């Protein structure tokens, strides 16, 4: 093991824990806030009990994101769906790396692993740039974009680039990429609950309720047409 400066040690350990605790606290409050609103019920008789029901519809709905063939919007735009997959894989990998580097660095020690991660991070960052260009140039997206939409995207692009620089974990050469990555991660963790990036916390709830209703009514899973 190479010696680690107190600042980097703080950034990759205590700072992350504090930021994570903060994010978790905000999320707990957020979920409590969601649950404070009464849920609409379904008193009507089941729509097609022989084929489906509420729980089946909810399950289908939850996993529809992994089924690009299930929705016209993803079926008609495979390139956008591929972008979505790369971008979110990159983000997930970077989140995982923020735990792995301080607590299990041996998992990102091999050259192949590091190179693969860097390719993923750079790919995801490029997708982020493409998404930013699309958001700026597409008249429909521009019309619905708030400052938070642009800032969140820019933040993620920078974070993904820093992730690719931090992936080698070469603190013996320079701690700067790691410091930048961990400070950025901490900021990210604090900012996310207040930004559009927190859409993933709503995803399971929104999908579950929609799927449950449509499953109960016999709509989900959808029957494909000719």
């Amino acid at each position: 093991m190479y010696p680690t400066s107190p600042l980097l040690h703080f950034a990759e350990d205590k700072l992350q824990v504090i930021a994570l605790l903060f994010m978790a606290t905000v999320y707990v409050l957020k979920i409590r806030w969601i649950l404070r609103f009464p849920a609409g019920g379904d008193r009507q008789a089941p729509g097609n009990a022989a084929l489906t029901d509420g729980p089946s519809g909810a399950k289908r709905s939850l996993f529809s994101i992994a089924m690009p063939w299930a929705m016209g919007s993803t079926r008609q735009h495979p390139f956008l769906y591929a972008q979505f997959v790369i971008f979110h894989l990159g983000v997930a990998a970077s989140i995982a790396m923020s735990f792995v580097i301080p607590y299990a660095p041996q998992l990102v020690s091999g050259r192949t692993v590091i190179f693969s991660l860097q390719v993923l991070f750079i790919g995801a960052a490029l997708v982020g740039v493409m998404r930013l260009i699309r958001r700026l140039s597409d008249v429909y997206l521009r019309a619905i974009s708030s400052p938070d939409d642009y800032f969140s995207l820019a933040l993620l692009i920078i974070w993904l680039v820093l992730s690719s620089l931090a992936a080698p974990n070469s603190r013996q050469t320079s701690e700067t990429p790691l410091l930048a990555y961990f400070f950025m991660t901490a900021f990210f963790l604090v900012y996310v609950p207040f930004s559009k990036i927190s859409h993933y916390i709503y995803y399971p709830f929104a999908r579950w309720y929609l799927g449950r209703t449509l499953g109960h009514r016999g709509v989900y899973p959808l029957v494909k047409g000719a």
Partner: protein
Amino acid sequence: MALERSYKAQKVIDRLQQKVNRQILLSLAACAHCGMCTDQCHYVLANPGDPSYAPAYKADRIRKLFKAHIDWTGKAAPWWVGAKSIYTDQELEDLKDTVFGKCTNCRRCSFNCPMGVDMATFNRMARGLLVHVGVMPDGVSHVSKDQWELGNQMGILQEEFLETLNWMEEELQSEYNDPDIKIPIDQPDANIMYTINPREAKYDPRTIAEAAAIFHFAGENWTMTTDGWDMTNFGLFNGDDELGAAVSGRVYDTAERLHAKKIVMSECGHGYRSTRCEGPNWGKRTLGMPLESSIFTMLNYITDGRIKVDKNKNTEPVTYHDSCNLARSCGVTEEPRELLRLVATDFREMTPNRAENFCCTGGGGAMSMSEYAPRRLQSAKIKAEQLRATGARIVVTSCHNCVDGLYDLIRHYKLGMEVKLLVNLVASALVVPARVAEPAVAKPVAAKSLAGRKILVVDDEPDVRTYLRMIFKDEGAEVVEVPDANQAMRALKASKPDLMTLDLIMPHKTGEKLYWELRKDPNFADLPIVIVTGYARVETPAINFHAFIAEKGISEPEGFLEKPIQPEAVLDTVVKILEKKAGILN
């Protein structure tokens, strides 16, 4: 300096806080502004480059309000997350234009949102907020009022309704030469209580007769009712849960009072959804009897052998249009197809179809909002292309609302297709038992009273045009119809009709103005004109047509009919006018 908020704007905000439930909250909060919904909306596809039609943009008009008053991020940093409150009545009008005029609540965007954001549901909620403070299109207001006051959305009086049923019963008995064919009314303990769309009683009563024939030949113990017979529900369209609960409650109460074993609803997408799915939630009731669409009933009659059909009686190519409410909100997609294949020989699938189908563009109450008709017809381009691509001659649907929407766009885009309901096809494919198949005595065929005549129908309401067309065509007339006064002028020059029926209240140019122009124009001064209007009474001074005529010093119209109009009255008036004119000429 804080902006002062209008009374109505404050009421809308107060109401918003009461109406947001967990599902709506999640839909409002979860949007990631990814834009995947954009090209799934027929309004966007027909109006490329205009972001105000994009589902996420429209949803954001409501989301901004939610963020400003409910979501904590919007309270903390409104500008940053796009939160924006409303302050003026004009802003409410702008919101009305979006939630009523740019969305049919078809739910196609909801089905294509990766996040599961149900935009149609909170668009309906937003309509309800506006209705709560009286901000809504005039048509929505009139229909809602009728449904509150008279129990049906077309303001049909009970006497009128019973007369229509009686008329249809007589027609059936005559057609099948069978005095046993009845349309039972308020029969207790029936297996089926049959509920309908008031459009049937008012404009298309033959569908009631066809359903009655099917019930009769199936040997069904069924009944219609004097109350609670309207299963349509404007509460679904105007977002008013109280109206929704009251209207569906009337149907349930009547069924319970008569001890009906099942409620069967005629073909109507929103009616089925309202009565079958939403009504129990709005009224917080659990029903003790099943409810089904007549699609299922007819299909079961055929598969159980209770009625026989011959599909060779329907040989023209047909396609099927899935109603949004049936397919996307109630999962009814396969039974109509199964039924259609049993009663027609040449069924061609439309693409896309089922839950991915495009809206007829008349949904969400759009047919009652004449101010948005040009926008609706422009957005119908997508549906028109879809229909044209099937090569079918007939488009079948299971929704009266879709019938009107489709009929309007077919005429607008000159597709030359007919629109039919499944009940029309089942009835025409019926194999009638031998004892009643032929009338005992062949009836003399009466000469059609309008044979060889050409009539121009000018009315902005598609239902009224359909109704008049049906009456005149049945009597052999050639009918040309247009939805506004400007098109009427062109049609007059092009088709040279023998008579024109004219509505008074229409968008752009009123019927009064057209009437005055025609009476001054030597080319048309002698054209017989029958005014067909719902707003001619003296107690409506702004639209007092007789005062207008007197003031302008022009001649009275040859005929004057006030809505609601009965077919006999229309025919009687028109035939007499044309006979009189022929007599003068001869």
